[in-house]
Structures are given as C-alpha cells and as structure tokens.
C-alpha cells in the first residue's frame, strides 16, 4: 500500500468502479512455478493449500528429487508456510476448504480426510456408495460440505463434517446421451436453493441437468456444451462458458439471459478458469491474462507475468500469483460516493472539511454549514467507508472526519463509531503479513469474530487471539484450552512442571475443559500427566470417556455415577461387561447400588440369564427364583412351565422367609395339573392360566360342582369365599332353582344379604325376595326397603306392621296404588284401631 491516493487501482467498467487492492507481495521465490500446483483457498481470506498437480508432474520432471515425495503445503495469503502435510495416500481428486477452515482432501478411492486445525490433525471417513470401485473424478465444495463426481457420473454429497453422511444424489446417467461426458459442473449451496438441499448443475451434451437428492431435471438447452459453469456467491446467477469462448450470464432458474460476452479468442484459447467476483461480475483466467466481465458484458483486461489463481470470495475475488496476492472487488457504494472523482456527497464534503482543518483553513466550517442538515448521514457514511478501507491512512482520515462531524452534532449515538474503531483495530492486526488473514469488513461480519479467533488459534497465534478476545469481550476458554493442548504436546519440560504451568494459567477461568487437555496428554502418551490434569475437570461426566480409554475402569464407573447421568453409567457398564470376566464385573457392581440396579432393570428385559447369574453370585435366592418364575410365566409349553416352576419353588424353599411363596408355587403347579385334566375331561373350555377362584367359578357355572368341591378342598378355600364364588357363578348361570334350593340351608357364612343383592342386580326380583325374610339380622327398616326394591309393597307393609312402625306404613301408603294400597290401609287401621 504504497500509494496515497484513495482511488489508486480503481477502474471503471460501465458505470461502476472496480478496485484491485494489493494485499501482499513477494509470496514465493520467483522460480516457484504456481502453474504446477493445484491451489485451493479457504474462504474469508483464509489459508491456501498447494498440491503438486499430478497430471503435470508426469510432463515436467525437471524438478529435483527433493520434490519426489509429495506433500500438501498450507500457506497464509501472505505466502507464509503454516504447515506441510506429507502425503502418501494416493491420488488426490479433491482439495478444498470449509468455511471454518477445515481442509478437505479427497482421494481417488473415495477416502476423505478432514484436517480440522491446520496442524495436521485429521478425521477420516469414506464416501462409500461405490466410490471406491468407480473412483472419484472431481469435487466441488461449499461452506459446509462438498459434492464428489465419480467416473460413473454418479454424485455423492456430504453436507457436514462433524458427522459425515455421504449420500448419493439422483442418478443423471439416464439423461446423459451415450458417448457424451460431463463437460463441466457446479453446485448451488443448500442455503440458496428452494429445497434447502444441495443442487448440482451438470453440463452434458448441449444441455444442463439439475441434479438434487431425489430427481434430475433436464433444462433442455441448445447452446452447449459448456466448458465452465460457475454459480454466483448468492446463488442467484449462473455464468456459462461455451465451446466457442462465449460467456453467458443467466439467472439460476434458467429463465432469463442477462448478458453475453465474447472472449474473441474462439475455441482455440478457452479460458482456464471462470469464477465470480462478488455477485455482479465474472472473472476469466488464461495462462497470463485475466478478463473481468461487468454486468452488461463490458470487460476489463489485466495482464500478468505468471500464472494466476482465482479464489472467489463472497464480495470479490482473490487473485494469487507468485509475486503478489490481490483482491479485486466492486468498490463499495459508500466508498465510491466519497472518493469518486467529482463526488459531492455530504460524506465527501465532510472528509474535505477535515482536510481543511489540517490545513488550518476556515473553509472547514463552510463545509460543515453546507451539509449541516445531512450531517448524521455523512458521519454514518464515513464510518462505513472506513470499514471498507484497507489503507490505515485512509481509515484514520475517514474516522477523523466522522469524529469531527460527530462533535458538531448535538445528539449522535457513537456506538457504531466505537464499534468500527474496535473492528478496524482487529482487522488491521490480523491483516498484518505475519498473520496473513486478508479479510474484508463484510467477510469479517459474515464470518463472526468467534470464528476469526478460532482461525488465529489454529495458526498458533494464541496471544493475539487472547488479546482480540478480551478486546472484543468474547469468551477466552477455547484459546486457553488450545494453548494448553499445544503446551502438553510440544513442551519438552517434565510432566510435573507442565501440569503446574497449565493449572496455574487456567484455574479460575470460566469454561475450561481440563478433560480436553488431559485427552491430548493421553494421546501424546503422557498418561501420568493426563491423570493429573483430569482431576481438575469439574464435570464428572466429561472425565468418563477418557478414563475408559485409559483403562481406569473403576474410576470411570465412579465418575459416571457421580455425574448422575444414567446413560453414562450404563454406557460404562456395557463396555465393562464386554471387557471383564463376569465374576470381576459383578464384583465391581455389587457395592455400587446405582450400577447394579441399572444392570438389573435392563437385564430384566433382555438378558435373564445374566440376571440369574447376578442374583446367584450375590446369594439373592428369592430374586433369582422370581426370575425363573417370570420365565415360567412367559413359557407356552406346559412341561417347561412346570419344570421352571418347580425350580423356582426349590430355590425359594431354601429360605425361611419365603415359605409362603414356595408353597404358593407348589400350589400353582398343582393347579396347572388339575386344569390340564379338566381341559382334557371337559372339552372346549380353557382352564390353564386361570386362578383358583376363576377355576371354581367356571366349574360351578358349567355345573360341575363336585369338581369344584374337589378344588375347594385341595386348595383349602375358606367357606366364606367359596360361598361367594358359588353364588356369583350360579347367578351368572341364572340357575335360580339351584339358588333357591341352596338357600334352604340353615346358615350362610356370608349372610343372606348378598343373595338378595346378587339376585336383584341380575334382575330377578322374585328370587331376590326369597331371601328377605332370612335377613333376620337387619333392622326392619332395611328389610322394608328390600321389599320395596323388589316391588312388593304389601310385604313391606307387613314388615312394618310387625315392627309396629306407623310412620313407615304411612310412607308406603303414599307410594302404593291399587290393591296394595287397600292392603296397607287395612294394616294401618289394624295398628291404629281407634282412628
């Protein structure tokens, strides 16, 4: 940034201005040939990954043997080597970044490595879905995922990296003419499609297919084949480059053509790459020439000495060559309004005013008076423009202008001004070439400060990250943890002093996960340090997985119990059960009630064998017997059922407290035997499964009273209960004769009332009434009520008469009509002869 003019590097295309900002220079040595490399740049001014282009390696072997061993090199935008990852895993078919700066490497056989921290740590997964057999051809990336094209023209999409689920998109093969290939393809990120799932544009034949998860749509174009397809950052527009070297810009719904541009180089010199620059212009690159096509087809041409790589951004495009890294963008409106030649916007006048002040000219005040009414907008515009400025001098100048304008205003909220000052300070710090994060203000807002800090941390810039975090009042825990992990990994000090140092720095800070640091230590083979660090972890649950992998089984189990999370406890138990001999496992859970009850309740449903063993070793015979009893109940086969019953009874018989249960089980076996016989004798009726009472009830209802009596004596059914059963069964049978007969018995152990009630509720008043006189223990009033309920008012009257209850008779008199009424009258008169 040597030039002083704010408009240096501006160029006009149609009615808009574009500017090229030099971010960094002298990235590599001059003899470094970028054209030999595949270059992938992380979005938001992130790191560059370079990998030797294999197809070129074969042609040009002039390089020395030191390059024979291939590697992926990660550089900052300023050309500083961040990390070299040696690579021997085969041919790379996809190299790209996610928005949180994870490097994705996809090999031909469908393996994906996700390098998540710029330090060479990675996770790995496979694309599956036939990728291994068919082979990956190419990959395209978006902010959180990518799509891989296989050589059999199938497409596989991965939409997240924390839990990757590669899935096949719809099969376009049927719409690809035989002999045709896929000439070019591009994707629309999920956030810009209607369906919210990724869509892929595939150029084949003369047309373009739109492929998503479920279907393939032919757009029926006639102008193909297209050698390049590129989708604008906001997903609204698509640019297509034809075989004839013509570039079309259309809307992404394939409805409107917006502009057309002819490279005038024809089919012989087709552009090597085509990318969008922001949302309104397209950049084409040849070996050493770059064209930028404006919205209406006008073009700017730039010429370079060497190979240029294009890295599209949301608001512009990064162009990387050996000697420099540049950023090309449309000049933001706010900036244009202030700086363009002949600008008369209030903000530009305000800026001029500051200039006047510096020159101690009174014109400063004239300027202010001129724009008095628009001053607030002018201040806002200056603040905004400062944000878009890369030059510190102009940033200062604009902020000075804003500050001056603000001071004249009586009421103005300075929040935005203060925020912008803070942001710019951060941006300038990270743009410094040692850090090399060339991020624009808009990218910074989109990326969020938290993610920017994460990028700093990944670059081992802990101190800067910490300062930025504190400055922006953001949490610092991740930075500390990362620092500690790095310390644990790289420090040559002895373990005690590392531990002391880490703990000293980290205690008392919010949100510190010692577990994570301990895990790092463990992974580094520093077991003792890991244990030491783990003790500082406040969340018991967090310690568990690491303790498990450290084989500290008992401590892991205790910590899991301490956490109160039963899922965690059960998880530990599952692992231990598999790992330990059964006896040891039981010993471990025996004195931990939470653990053993979890095992009990889960085994109850799924593993009764385990449960039996568990009770046996703990000498809990009754519980063991109950397990067997439960098995017996579930058993359909009668013989096995009996066998299990007997086994359970035998177990129970050993203990004194369960005599009753043991006897009950014996009885149960006896009942089953009897029921089996009944079923054989009395065809067509089911008995097995019924209780003693039900069996008796059934037998009586069917009229087999002798058999019922046999059951009665066998199971010592008390008289009372037997009478109830018999009564209910006979009523259910509606065998009134039998009931009447039975009712002649002198005494009933349950009284006669139940006879009355049962008959009455079965609807037989006649049978019910028979028992009323037998209820001698009840007061006469109750008996009267009973008569009335049977509809026998005269009988009730007689009852009242015998009790000499005149009142009751009078009430009855009121109720009665016809003959009964006369009868009641007669009785009343008898009781009251003098009336």
């Amino acid at each position, binding site marked *: 940034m040597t030039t002083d003019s704010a408009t240096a590097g501006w160029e006009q295309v149609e009615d808009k201005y574009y500017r090229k900002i030099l971010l960094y220079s002298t990235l590599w040595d001059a003899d470094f040939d970028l054209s030999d490399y595949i270059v992938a740049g992380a979005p938001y001014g992130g790191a560059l990954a370079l990998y030797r282009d294999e197809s070129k390696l074969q042609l040009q072997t002039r390089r020395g043997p030191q390059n024979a061993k291939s590697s992926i090199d990660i550089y900052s935008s300023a050309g500083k080597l961040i990390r070299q990852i040696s690579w021997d895993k085969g041919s790379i078919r996809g190299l790209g970044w996610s928005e949180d700066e994870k490097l994705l490497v996809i090999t031909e056989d469908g393996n994906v490595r996700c390098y998540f921290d710029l330090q060479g740590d990675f996770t790995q997964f496979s694309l599956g879905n036939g990728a291994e057999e068919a082979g990956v051809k190419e990959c395209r990336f978006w902010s959180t995922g990518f799509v891989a094209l296989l050589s059999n023209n199938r497409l596989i999409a991965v939409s997240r990296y924390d839990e990757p689920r590669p899935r096949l998109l719809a099969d376009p093969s049927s719409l690809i003419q035989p002999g045709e290939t896929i000439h070019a393809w591009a994707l629309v990120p999920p956030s810009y499609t209607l369906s919210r799932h990724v869509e892929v544009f595939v150029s084949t034949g003369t047309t373009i297919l739109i492929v998503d998860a479920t279907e393939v749509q032919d757009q029926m174009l006639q102008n193909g084949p297209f050698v390049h397809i590129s989708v604008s950052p906001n997903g609204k527009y698509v640019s297509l480059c034809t075989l004839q070297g013509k570039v079309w810009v259309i809307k992404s719904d394939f409805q409107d053509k917006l502009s057309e541009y002819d490279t005038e180089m024809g089919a012989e010199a087709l552009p090597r790459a085509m990318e969008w620059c922001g949302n309104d212009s397209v950049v084409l690159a040849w070996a050493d020439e770059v064209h930028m096509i404006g919205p209406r087809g006008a073009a700017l041409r730039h010429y370079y000495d060497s190979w240029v790589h294009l890295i599209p951004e949301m608001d512009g495009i990064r162009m990387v060559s050996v000697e420099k890294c540049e950023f090309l963008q449309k000049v933001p409106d706010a900036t244009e309004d202030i700086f363009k030649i002949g600008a008369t916007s209030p903000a530009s006048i305000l800026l001029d005013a500051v200039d006047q002040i510096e020159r101690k000219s009174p014109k400063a005040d004239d300027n202010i008076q001129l724009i008095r009414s628009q001053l607030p907008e002018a201040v806002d515009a200056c603040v905004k423009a400062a944000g878009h400025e890369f030059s510190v001098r102009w940033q200062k100048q604009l902020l000075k202008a804003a500050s001056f304008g603000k001071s004249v205003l009586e009421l103005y909220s300075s929040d935005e001004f203060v925020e912008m000052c803070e942001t710019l300070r951060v941006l300038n710090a990270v743009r410094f070439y040692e850090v090399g994060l060339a991020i624009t203000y808009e990218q910074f807002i989109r990326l969020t400060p938290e993610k920017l800090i994460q990028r700093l941390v990944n670059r081992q810039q802990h101190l800067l990250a910490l300062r930025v975090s504190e400055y922006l009042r953001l949490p610092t825990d991740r930075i500390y943890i990362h620092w500690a992990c790095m310390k644990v990994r790289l420090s040559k000090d002895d373990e005690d002093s590392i531990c002391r140092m880490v703990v000293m720095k980290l205690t008392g800070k919010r949100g510190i996960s010692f577990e994570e640091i301990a895990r790092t230590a463990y992974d580094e083979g520093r077991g003792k340090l890991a244990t030491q660090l783990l003790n500082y972890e406040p969340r018991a649950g967090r310690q568990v997985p690491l303790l498990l992998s450290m084989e500290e089984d008992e401590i892991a189990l205790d910590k899991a119990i301490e956490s109160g999370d039963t899922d965690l406890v059960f998880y530990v138990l599952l692992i231990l059960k598999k790992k330990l001999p059964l006896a040891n496992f039981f010993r471990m859970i025996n004195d931990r009630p939470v653990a053993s009850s979890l095992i009990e309740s889960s085994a109850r449903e799924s593993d009764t064998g385990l449960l039996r063993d568990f009770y046996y070793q703990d000498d809990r015979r009754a519980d063991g017997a109950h397990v067997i009893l439960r098995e017996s109940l579930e058993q359909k086969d009668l013989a096995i059922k009996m066998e299990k019953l007997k086994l359970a009874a035998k177990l129970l018989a050993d203990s004194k407290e369960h005599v009753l249960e043991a006897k009950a089980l014996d009885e149960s076996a006896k009942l089953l035997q009897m029921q089996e016989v009944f079923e054989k004798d009395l065809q067509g009726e089911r008995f097995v499964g019924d*209780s003693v009472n039900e069996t008796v009830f059934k037998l009586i209802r069917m009229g087999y009273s002798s058999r019922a009596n046999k059951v009665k004596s066998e199971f010592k059914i008390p008289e009372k209960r037997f009478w109830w059963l018999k009564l209910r069964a006979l009523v259910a049978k509606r065998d009134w004769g039998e009931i009447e007969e039975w009712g002649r018995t002198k005494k009933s152990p349950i009284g006669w009332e139940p006879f009355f009630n049962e008959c009455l509720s079965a609807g037989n008043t006649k049978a019910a009434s028979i028992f009323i006189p037998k209820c001698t223990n009840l007061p006469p009033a109750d008996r009267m009520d009973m008569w009335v309920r049977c509809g026998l008012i005269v009988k009730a009257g007689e009852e009242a008469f015998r009790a000499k209850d005149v009142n009751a008779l009078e009430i009855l008199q009121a109720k009665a009509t016809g003959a009964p009424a006369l009868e009641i009258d007669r009785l009343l008169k008898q009781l009251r002869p003098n009336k």
Partner: protein
Amino acid sequence: MAPPSGIDTSHIKAAAQKDFFELLLGVRGKKVLVLDKSLSGPLGSFLKFSALQEHGVDKIFWLEDGVADATQKNIVFLVRCNSKNAYAIAEHVKKNSKIPGQDFEYTVLFVPRRTLVCEKILEDEGVLGDVTIGEFPLHFLALEPDLLSLELDDSFEELYLRKDYTSIFYSARALMSIQRRYGLFPRIIGKGDCARRLADALIRMRSEEDASDSNLFALTPSSILGELIVVDRESDMVTPLLTQLTYEGLIDETIGIHNSKVELDAALVGPPQQQQQGGTQPSSSSAAAPASSQKQKRPVVLSSEDKLFENLRDTNFAIVGNLLNKVARRLNDDYEVRHQAKTVSEIREFVSKLGGLQQEHQSLRLHTGLAEEIMKHTRSDIFNKILEVQQSRPPQLYLNIFPIGASPQPLTSAKFWSQTVENLLQWGIKEPRDNILTPPRWIADLAAGVDPSSQHDAIEELIARNAPVEAVLRLICIESLVGQGLKPKDLENFKREILQAYGYHHVLTLDALEKLQLLQSRTTIVASGVARTSYSNLRKVLKLIVDEVNEHNPDDIAYVYSGYAPLSIRLVQCIIQKPLMTATTKGRRGEDGLNAGVNAGAGGWRGFEDVLKSIKGKTFDEFQRGEDKALRARNILNGQNEKKVTVVFFVGGCTFTEIAALRFIGKREEGRRQILIGTTAIINGNKMMRAAMA
C-alpha cells in the same frame, strides 16, 4: 388457573413445535414417520396430524408394529432413547436391507436426547453408518398453563422399584431449562431421598453450566422465581392410594386420563367435527375408523380451554351434579331469550351469541355424560365397598350426586340438546341428599392404632367378589403404610387370598410391593429399622383428617378427599402457608395474621423440623446464590418483584387431587405468590399398583 404472569409456559409448546418441524424439514422430501407408541400422547398434545402432513409426513407407523410398506425412501424414527427402541430400530434397518433394489435413508430422532448407549447399540448392531442420528429435546409438556409434566409414565416404577434414577436426571434438565430462562431458584427446599437427588443434580448442573463454554455469564438467582419445593412421592405414598374424589381425579380413577386425553364412547362425545385434535393416529388404524361408529372410542381433550371443565375439574364430585344443574339452568334461560326476541336486532343479537351457547351446550353434554359414566362406577357395590373400607363406616351410603329416581335418561346422539338441558333441570330440584361423604376415617383409626381387622372382612369380600386386583391391593397397602405394617398372620392370609383369587403370578406383584415398601409385615419393619413415614405422629400435628368438610365452599384442601388432606400438600403448606400451618399444629386458631411477620421471614422448614422427622427421607433446604453485584443489577432492572412464582415439583408423580389442592392454595395465596406445578408424570393408585405388576 390463570397462567402465572411471571412465567409463560406457552413458549414450551411453541418451542417444541418449532424444533420438531425443523427436524422434519431436515429430511428432504416425503417421509414415513415411525413412532414410539409412548410418544404419541405427548406429541399429540402439541402437534396435529395435518401439520405433520404439511411437513412431508406421508404415513405414520408404530415402532412396535414395524414398517409395513416401503413406498417412501425416507424413514424417520422418533423414539424415546432407551435400548429397547435402539434394538428395534436396528432390527428394522437390517430387515429392510434385505429387500432387494430398495434404498432407504434413515433418520433417527431420539427423545429427549441422543445417548451413548443407543449409539453404542446401533454401532454394535452394525447399522450406525446407515442412519443419521438427531435428537428432539422434549422435556416438559405444558399440560396446562400452571402444570408442567415430563409425562414419563414409568417414572414411578423406575425410581422406587428399579432404583433407576434416569427420570431425576431428565427432571433436573427440564428444571434447568427454566432456570436458564428465568434465573436460578433462590432456594431449593424438599423432602425425600429422590428429592434430594434431584436437588443435588440441579446444583451440580449449575456448577457444570458455570464451567461450560456455552454461555458467557454465570447464572444468577431469579427475581421472578421464588423457591422450588421438591416433593418426593416416597414420603407420601398413601395419598395416591386413596380414592380421589375430585371430578378430574375420579375421571382418572374410573376411565383414565392420558396426556390430558380421555377415551370416551363416540356417542358421548357428540358430533365429530370438534374432535379433530386427536393428533397422531397412525394411518393404519384410522383407516378403519368410520366403519363402526357405535362402539368406537374417541379421544377427548380435557383442558382449561373448556371453561365448564375448568370450573368443574377441581371440585369435589359430590357437588358436580349441582354445578352442572346450575349451568343447565343458565343455558336454558339464555336459550329462552329467543322467545322474547321481537325486533330484528334482538334476534340478531341472539344469533350472534348462539355459537357460544352451542359450544357451551356441547361441553355441558359432554360433562353430563361423563358424570353419568362415573356414576355407573360410583354406584356399584364394589366401589362403595372400597369407600366403605376407607371411611370405616357402615354400608349403603352411596356416592350419588343425583337424587335417586331422578337420574337422567341415557343420552343418545339422536336426541338433540334440549334433552340434556331438560334432564338436568329435573335433577336439581332438591338438594341431593344421598351424597354424604365422610372422611376416610380408616386412616385416622389406623394411625391411632385401632385394630384394623374390622375391615378385613370387607376386603376379603372384595377379593371373593373379584373386585379389581388394583383396588384390593391399594386397600391393603394403605393399611400397611398407615398402620406401620400388617400383622404377619394377616399379611399371610391376604397373600393367600390374593394368589388364589387373582393367580399365582402375583407372587411377583407382592414381592414388588414389598420392595416398594408398600406392603410389609410388622416384623420386617421392626427388623429392618428403616425410617418410615409415621402417620400416627403426623395425623394430629398436620391435621390430616378434617371431619367437617364443606364441599360447596371448601375452606381446606382436605375437601379433595372429602376429609383427608394429602400429606404431600400439607408439607408444601408448611413452607408457603406457615402462619396457617403453625396455627393448625399448635391448635391456636384465629391467630393467622399475628405471627405472620415473625415466622414468614425465616421461611423454609423453620418451625416444622420435628414434624419432618416423622417423614421418610432426607430433608434439605439449599440456597443458590450468585454474585451480589449481578443480583443487585437484576433487582434494579426488574424492580423488586414482590409476587414470586413458587414451583412445586413432584418426583415420582402426583395425582389430580394434589394438583387441585395446590390450585386451592394458589387461590388463597394469590396476593403473595403464584404456584407452578411440575411433575414427572400424573399418577394414581392404580398406576402405582400396575407398576408393581409389570
């Protein structure tokens, strides 16, 4: 049941809905939803089937039944995160993979969270790679604005029988979500071992939250929330075992309420168009729905949206007839207005009200029908015998809300509304005279040590008459709990009777009841030396039995059992109605206001320490403090909110009577505080017994 103004529970419903739809939209295209049966009720309470269809759900199946067809590529499982379900899912996936030429995309959504165990099972079964796993954090369901339930139906069994404390963990998470929104409970007070566990879990979660990276600021005590009172079911097992006598309680006892829904005869419900809330019926079963409408059961939502039900639900059943009658009269008068309407504008005014009247009428019809349905039970011999035992009194006094002889004709859907109104008009002519409900004196007798064998004949008779086994067990358990165990001889006798009457498999049930300490012999209790809730100590001190209860205009919570005050709620009163309770315990009536200033300041259990010694389980009173600065700032921002929200949380479940009693207290305390009720599930005695039978 005005919604507590401090806390808005409706956001819980809205958030659940939003979360769920977002999860559904995450799966592209049409999909088949495979549902865990135990989730259909909770889901139905905030989702409609039509809304599911709008979000691409083509068909719904039960996980238990398996997916019958393979028309859709996308299969979404929505299940509770237990291992049984994980195995079932693995089974499905493996079975489907054998279908040639079919390619499925599986998404598994675990409720309320994805667990390590489920993932491990899927991994061990070799299907982890085939499924996308997500979670649907459904914790509290807002059954009513003042009632939050986790609807964990098995929580009682898990906590006390299986000693599996998973539901405590989820309860703590659910309460944490409230604390995250409104600030910490300044004080956590409670009684019971499981309650203690919950408090510990909450305190631990707070400290973990402080240590976690998710938010920048530490939680500070709330200025909206008052105390959290945790009641452990184990400290009062008797209350749910008694027969609930409020309207809603009796509906639950006789018909059963699940997730605010009750299954009724279609004839009772009336025209179908109003009952579309049914929600998530699987298509397979709803296909057969229109065929046989006569015996069809239809789910009906019982909630405070039905104004009539809101008025009835917490009243004693004895006066429900009366209230229905009053409403019928008023409705009738309102309808009569139409005859007086002369001018066009008068008629128009009537017509404009007609919609409301018809709705009210519909609801009146429903509740009359329901009341009748319940009456069928309450007038049965068996039911009365059960009450007789509980009330220690001679038989023949029916719980009858309508005068005998005037009971209404059964309604058929053919008869139009006038039928109902006229019927109701007839009933209420004179005060119902037969509804003499006396307190469950048996409790008092048992607690006082009166020989319980007087009721044993009645219980044996119930057994002989094949009364529901739950009912019989409930009675015996009450005797064991209140009377400090049964005599060994009596216990053996009962056991034999039950085994012979209901089957020998009840050996397991009886064993489970013993493990639950619901049914014990006196010798075991003495031998074990475990502390139990001692009703003989508490009966007088906490005035559990109230002899004179005015059902029409109750002055004490005891009305919910016609004379027994739930111990659990008395405990809550000890904390929030201190002056009243002190007066009760010391026997000084009429001093309510005087000592208020002195005692109320102390709060917590102060003054009732001795009482608590007679109740099972740990006692605790924890303060949650924050940085003074933050607290002061909060107070300045929100103003000193005098009216705090007290949250009463039941570990192990609560009954509708307890809810009614808390609402009763809430009304009394309206000026000082609001009560929000939380529970792991809504239970009753039958559910407790069934837990032992499982």
